[in-house]
């Protein structure tokens, strides 16, 4: 099909349509493929479920991988295409992805089928579907994908593609060729489709354009039609309106004489006459017309005949006049019939009410008769009567005209009266008016001057009336003329006189105030000027006396003199001040002229006045100005400020005496016509001078203080000659511009003043203020009488929190809560009576925010300030000072208390130490000096027991003091090692058991919760705490029991040891005293005396407990008992094995049983160390004897070395000779540390136990670092010694060697051996 190329707009539109269609197709195909993808996935899943749902391993099955593949891989394959089809339908990328995915589906299908030929058709079907896009690129992408797939799999897995073991590359080419062939076909089809699409788009665009055109035409036609209809409607409406507006009754009749249309007048007529206008249409005229209503059959028949004649075309016009009277009036109507075609023959009937015309006709006839009668009158009158035609040509004149004008009718007939009678004096304006009126057919009345035939000038009064014929057309004019020449002459003379008077009056009105009064003074006439000036209206003035204008300025005598003068008939003239209506005053130059009557006495008074108010004001202003100038000159002359007037060059034109004095003080004399001092020789800084002149030229005032240098004699120096050592003086310079009459600045007015003192004072004040504000104390100044603040420095303002403005509205008592006005007055009274004195007081000030500030105020009265003097208050904030004083007082009290406590403690300790020492020394002395005591084993034993118990007690006190000292010095440290709490509790109970049994008190152990096998704590200190608590409990219990309850809270990681006794208990006061854990207090001194003890144990135990993460709490009831609870931290108990209480009990029994089985209860001390060989390295002979005695008594074999060297050599020479070593750490020649290190370096592994007097933890660590296995502190506890010896001696037993005979030992060993002390 060949089509003509469309225009460019159509082409563009066609392209748009084509593109839109293509996009729509793309979107549709995207969605189609999205559905296909989903169906393929579903199909794959269903196929997998049908074909290979399960895979088997014997009798056990599981879902086949193919099902998962169909679900997973299939879903993955379809996911992106479906997503893109949903989110980006129509995009090129979407269809490319769809193409790729569809081809991959084909590959998958072929793979699953094992290359079945039938499955290859999926490729072709997919390509055909992809061709829906009409996009060759999509086919190309799909072809590339499938070709690549065939190529790759055909090469590596031909079986999966072709179903054969091996495939020739030609096969891939063959497959690709078939794909290519299909692509060619599809691309051709796509192209054809696109071409079709384009053709369709072009047609659509063309169609759209035509449709647009049609629509435009239709719219235009429609608009035209609408306009036409509108016009018709309007025309119809106009016609109807026109008809309705006609006063005539108009009816449209059709051929049958029926009424087709009638106007409003007709309808109204019918309604008026009892008809119904609404039913007129299509009623026959004759049924409703006035003719029928007239009741005249003849006229009705005649009307019908005429109507029919017109409707039938026999006549083109008919008319009929008839009478139709109503009860109220006589009426006549005319009926006119006119035919027209519309289409069909119609007639319009116009019926007019001619009643008026009929009546008029009758009237006219009556008028004609009257006219005839009047014509006779006209003929006989003396006035001229002229009749003219419409063109104002005379048609008839009467005798009167002939008489006045002198012309006869024959002479004037057919002529214009104007041309005939008017002459040069005739007023053209009047003629014009007359002509205008006559031309318009209007009447005219006026006066005109004519000239008669004989030349006589005369005036006429014309009255011209137009005449009309019966048709109302202008017929002519009738003029009636009256000769008023004499009247005019008289009037002219009157007018001339009046004009003169008026002119005179106007002149008076403009320039004077004229009033006429009668002889009593009442106003009978005033002119306009009088009213204007006085403000009163003429009406207000008429009949009034001139008193209403009295201003009160003139005395009564003034008026009396006036009346006297004018009463005598004389003219009186004065300047008078009157008051206007608005109250303002005005001056007049008044002349009163009496008008004398026939009797020579004044009948009226004519007052002629001229206003002179401005003149009077000017006189007064001049007078005031002169007075002011006089005063000003006097002020300038007497002014203390220097006033100088110069020109712009600085040349003096005027100087007052003060200026002269000032300049003379600078050593300069002012001279008129010479430069002023400040302009001379650069006395002012140049910039300032320029600024001054600039301001003056700008018309501004220059004002500035100037510091001018002077020499020691006071002479003004040049500004540039100044130097720091020269004194200066301050001048206040004010320069104002002076302008001449033209407003041009041509001079300068200088006002200078010596302000040196003022400036200096101001500076001093500023310095004082700065100093005041720098003060650290507040300074208040308040009035001595009102107590209102006058000044406060910065510190004062800061103290009270108010601003200076606020303080200046307050009084001194407003900020002091301890005073009122009266009490404050009494307080400061001494300052008034003793000026110069001061009062210092400590009080409080109330801050703005309500809190009080302790201050120390020092008041002083300065009588010279103010009117009654000023109080100066120096205020110091003593808050910190008070705090410091209080803290000092508190510290002092505490120090005193501590000193007292320490003194008491020292006194107590002195007693505690001396008491056992006395017993020890006493019994030792007894043993030494009393042989009988020593010989008696029982007494000797008792003495030894006493010495031992007192020594132990002394040791306890010394240990407590040492512990307390370390705690107070902050040098006590705690270990955090594995600690068996149960073991410690049992050890404490075991140790305390003998003492408790001795007092008959039972010691019980209870476990309230599961107990961890180990906690992180310091076993030594924990044991010490429990020993103290249990010891105290036993000490203060005489009967009953002491129970140790142990429990643990895993969450808070705390272990609690409650020691509950049934002892004497404590009062509340005693408990509170103890609970302070004061280092030096027991319940009271009496308990110390009764029960002994240092009083430090509980304090030390509490300190230990606090350092172990807890504290000690005390509960007690007097007479019932006490409970002391010690808590310590356990550390993290996670994964720590716990023992239940019953398990603990069982364990205890097992241990007990084991001990029983092992024969551990009780053991013979003499056998404990049997077989153990011990080397004792000790340099002190006493300790050598004591320690070796204890060990040998226990069955050990002991060798003593006096120093570390000997000990080291003994072991080095005989390493297997000894089981263990007790090593004193402080020895001469080679101390224990070095000896231990030497042995360890040599590889000796003997257990070495350090013996040291130093109890500090650092010493223990030193021992351990040196190589010691354990340590024991001196003084050595025998049991501890034996325990240690047994533990280490039995744990390490080297190969048994024969112990050499001690007597044959090396000479390096001391001679004193195990034979015991001598």
């Amino acid at each position: 099909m060949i089509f003509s190329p469309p225009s460019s707009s159509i082409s563009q539109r066609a392209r748009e349509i084509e593109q839109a269609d293509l996009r729509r197709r793309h979107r549709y195909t995207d969605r189609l493929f999205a559905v296909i993808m989903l169906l393929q996935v579903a199909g794959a899943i269903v196929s997998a479920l049908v074909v290979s749902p399960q895979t088997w391993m014997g009798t056990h099955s599981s879902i086949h991988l193919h099902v998962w593949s169909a679900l997973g891989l299939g879903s993955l394959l379809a996911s992106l295409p479906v997503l893109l089809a949903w989110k980006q339908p129509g995009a090129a990328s979407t269809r490319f992805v769809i193409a790729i995915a569809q081809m991959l589906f084909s590959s998958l299908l072929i793979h699953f089928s094992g290359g079945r030929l039938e499955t290859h058709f999926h490729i072709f079907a997919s390509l055909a579907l992809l061709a829906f896009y009409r996009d060759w690129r999509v086919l190309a992408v799909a072809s590339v994908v499938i070709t690549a797939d065939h190529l790759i799999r055909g090469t590596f897995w031909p079986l999966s593609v072709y179903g054969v073991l091996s495939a020739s590359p030609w096969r891939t080419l063959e497959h690709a060729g078939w794909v290519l062939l299909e692509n060619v076909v599809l691309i051709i089809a796509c192209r054809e489709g696109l071409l079709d699409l384009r053709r369709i788009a072009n047609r659509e665009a063309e169609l759209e354009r035509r449709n647009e055109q049609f629509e435009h035409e239709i719219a235009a036609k429609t608009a035209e039609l609408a306009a036409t209809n509108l016009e018709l409607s309007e025309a119809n409406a106009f016609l109807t309106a026109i008809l309705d507006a006609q006063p005539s009754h108009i009816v449209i009749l059709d051929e049958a004489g029926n009424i087709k249309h009638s106007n409003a007048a007709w309808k109204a007529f019918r309604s008026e006459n009892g008809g119904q206008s609404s039913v007129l249409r299509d009623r026959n005229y004759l049924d409703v017309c006035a003719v029928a209503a007239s009741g005249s059959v003849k006229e009705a028949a005649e009307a019908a005949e005429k109507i029919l004649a017109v409707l039938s075309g026999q006549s083109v016009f008919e008319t009929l006049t008839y009478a139709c009277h109503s009860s109220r009036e006589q009426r006549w109507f005319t009926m006119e019939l006119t035919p027209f075609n519309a289409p069909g023959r119609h007639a319009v009937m116009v019926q007019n009410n001619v009643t008026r015309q009929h009546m008029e006709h009758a009237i006219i006839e009556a008028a004609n008769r009257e006219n005839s009668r009047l014509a006779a009158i006209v003929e006989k009158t003396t006035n001229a009567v002229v009749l003219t035609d419409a063109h104002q040509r005379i048609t008839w004149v009467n005798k009167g005209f002939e008489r006045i004008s002198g012309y006869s009718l024959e002479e004037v007939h057919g002529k214009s009266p104007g041309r005939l009678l008017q002459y040069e004096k005739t007023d053209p304006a009047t003629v014009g008016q007359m002509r205008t009126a006559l031309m318009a057919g209007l009447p005219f009345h006026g006066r005109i001057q004519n000239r008669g035939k004989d030349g006589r000038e005369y005036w006429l009064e014309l009255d011209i009336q137009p005449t009309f014929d019966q048709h109302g057309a202008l017929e002519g004019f009738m003029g009636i003329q009256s000769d008023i020449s004499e009247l005019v002459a008289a009037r002219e003379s009157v007018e001339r006189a009046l004009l003169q008077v008026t002119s005179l009056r106007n002149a008076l009105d403009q320039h004077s105030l004229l009033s006429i009064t009668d002889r009593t003074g009442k106003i009978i006439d005033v002119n306009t000027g009088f009213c204007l000036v006085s403000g009163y209206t003429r009406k207000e003035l008429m009949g009034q006396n001139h008193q209403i204008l009295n201003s009160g300025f003139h005395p009564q005598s003034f008026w009396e003199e006036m009346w006297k003068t004018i009463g005598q008939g004389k003219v009186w003239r004065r300047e008078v001040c009157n008051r206007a209506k608005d109250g303002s005053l005005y001056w007049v130059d008044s002349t009163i002229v009496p008008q004398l009557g026939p009797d020579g006495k004044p009948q009226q008074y004519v007052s002629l006045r001229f206003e002179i108010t401005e003149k009077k004001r000017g006189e007064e202003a001049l007078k005031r100005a002169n007075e002011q100038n006089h005063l000003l000159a006097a002020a300038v002359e007497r002014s203390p400020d220097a006033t100088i007037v110069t020109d712009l060059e600085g040349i003096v034109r005027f100087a007052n005496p003060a200026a002269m004095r000032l300049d003379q003080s600078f050593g300069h004399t002012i001279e008129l016509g010479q430069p002023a001092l400040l302009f001379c020789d650069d006395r002012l800084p140049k910039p300032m001078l320029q600024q001054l002149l600039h301001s003056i030229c700008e018309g501004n005032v220059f004002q500035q203080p100037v510091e001018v240098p002077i020499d020691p004699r006071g002479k003004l120096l040049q500004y540039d000659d100044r130097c720091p050592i020269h004194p200066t003086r301050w001048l206040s310079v004010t320069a104002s511009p002076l302008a001449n009459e033209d407003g041009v600045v041509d001079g300068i007015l200088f006002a200078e003043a010596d302000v040196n003192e003022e400036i200096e004072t101001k500076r001093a004040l500023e310095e004082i203020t700065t100093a005041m504000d720098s003060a650290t104390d507040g300074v208040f100044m308040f009035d001595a009488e009102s107590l209102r603040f006058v000044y406060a420095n910065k510190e004062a303002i800061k103290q009270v929190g108010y601003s200076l403005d606020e303080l200046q509205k307050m009084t001194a008592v407003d900020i002091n809560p301890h005073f009122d006005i009266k009490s404050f007055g009494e307080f400061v009274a001494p300052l008034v009576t003793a000026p110069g004195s001061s009062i210092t007081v400590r009080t409080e000030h109330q801050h703005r925010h309500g809190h009080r500030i302790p201050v120390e105020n020092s008041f002083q009265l300065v009588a010279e300030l103010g009117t009654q003097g000023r109080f100066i208050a120096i205020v110091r904030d003593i808050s910190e000072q008070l705090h410091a004083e209080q803290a000092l007082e508190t510290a002092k009290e505490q120090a005193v208390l501590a000193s007292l406590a320490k003194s008491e403690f020292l006194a107590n300790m002195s007693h505690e130490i001396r008491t056992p020492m006395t017993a020890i020394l006493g019994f030792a002395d007894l043993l030494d000096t009393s042989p009988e005591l020593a010989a008696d084993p029982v007494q000797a034993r008792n003495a030894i027991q006493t010495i031992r118990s007192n020594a132990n007690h002394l040791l306890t006190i010394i240990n407590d003091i040492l512990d307390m000292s370390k705690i107070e010095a902050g040098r006590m440290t705690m270990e955090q090692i594995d600690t068996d709490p149960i073991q410690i509790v049992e050890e404490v109970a075991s140790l305390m058991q003998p003492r408790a049994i001795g007092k008959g008190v039972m010691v019980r152990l209870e476990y309230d919760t599961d107990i961890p096998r180990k906690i992180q704590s310091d076993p030594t200190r924990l044991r010490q705490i429990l020993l103290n608590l249990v010891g105290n409990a036993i000490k203060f219990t005489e009967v009953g029991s002491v129970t140790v309850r142990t429990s643990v809270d895993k969450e808070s990681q705390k272990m609690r040891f409650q020691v509950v006794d049934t002892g004497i208990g404590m009062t509340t006061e005693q408990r509170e005293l103890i609970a302070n854990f004061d280092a030096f207090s027991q319940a009271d001194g009496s308990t110390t005396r009764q029960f002994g003890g240092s009083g430090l144990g509980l304090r030390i135990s509490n300190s230990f407990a606090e350092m172990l993460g807890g504290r000690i709490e005390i509960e007690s009831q007097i007479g019932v008992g006490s409970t002391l609870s010690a808590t310590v931290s356990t550390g993290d108990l996670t994964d720590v094995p716990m023992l239940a209480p019953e398990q603990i009990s069982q364990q205890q029994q097992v241990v007990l049983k084991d001990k029983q089985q092992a024969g551990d209860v009780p053991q013979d001390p003499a056998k404990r160390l049997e077989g153990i060989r011990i080397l004792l390295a000790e340099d002190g002979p006493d300790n050598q004897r004591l320690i070796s005695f204890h060990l040998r008594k226990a069955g050990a074999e002991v060798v003593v070395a006096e120093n570390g060297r000997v000990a080291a050599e003994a072991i080095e020479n005989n390493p297997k000779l000894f089981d263990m070593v007790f090593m004193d750490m402080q020895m001469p020649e080679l101390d224990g540390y070095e000896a231990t290190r030497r042995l360890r370096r040599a590889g000796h592994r003997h257990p070495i136990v350090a013996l040291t007097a130093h109890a500090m933890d650092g010493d223990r660590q030193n021992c351990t670092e040196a190589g010691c296995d354990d340590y024991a502190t001196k003084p050595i506890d025998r049991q501890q010694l034996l325990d240690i010896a047994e533990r280490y001696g039995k744990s390490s037993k080297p190969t048994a060697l024969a112990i050499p005979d001690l007597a044959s030992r090396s000479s390096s060993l001391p001679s004193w051996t195990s034979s015991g002390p001598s």
Partner: protein
Amino acid sequence: MLTLPWFLGVTAGFAVLVAYGSVPGPSESPPDHWPATASIERATDRPTLLVFVHPQCPCTLATIAELERLIAEVSGHVQPIVLLGCPANQRQEWLETRLAQRCQMLSASQVLADVNGVLATQFNAMTSGFCVLYSATGKLQFHGGITYQRGHEGESHGRVALRRILNGQPPLATKAPVYGCQLIRTENRPAPPSPCCQEVEP
């Protein structure tokens, strides 16, 4: 932005699928000679071909299709016996599968039920689709599968080898991988004589 990860994912899926299909089932060598204790009799005039089948295995359909082709190619030159493994307590359900029906449609073939896999155990058959060819004298000639991939019909080395052997040509291979599900087997002990093995009614 999503295209590349998508494509890679799809490729990986394909690879997994191909890999799965290429993994043969477990196999062992059967006895070199026809076991005397076998409960079935072999042919003495021609080779006997045992085909062990798991009746539920979907991949073995391809094996049966190839067997069908093979039988057609070597008609009369072999005695095919198809052994369908089944548990004793589900015998009937297992022998009514599509695969079992397909086996019964084989021409010139005997289809037997191998209850509890006794014979499979005896001949060391582990995977469904496992074929064992014994000569007329009872000597082992071939064992293995006759498909090239799981469930895929088509030429395979196994089928080619069998065809050649049955046609009297020198074999290119005497064994081939088997692609299929694992067979039902008894404990490793000699199978008792029948009646454990019965002919399957068509």
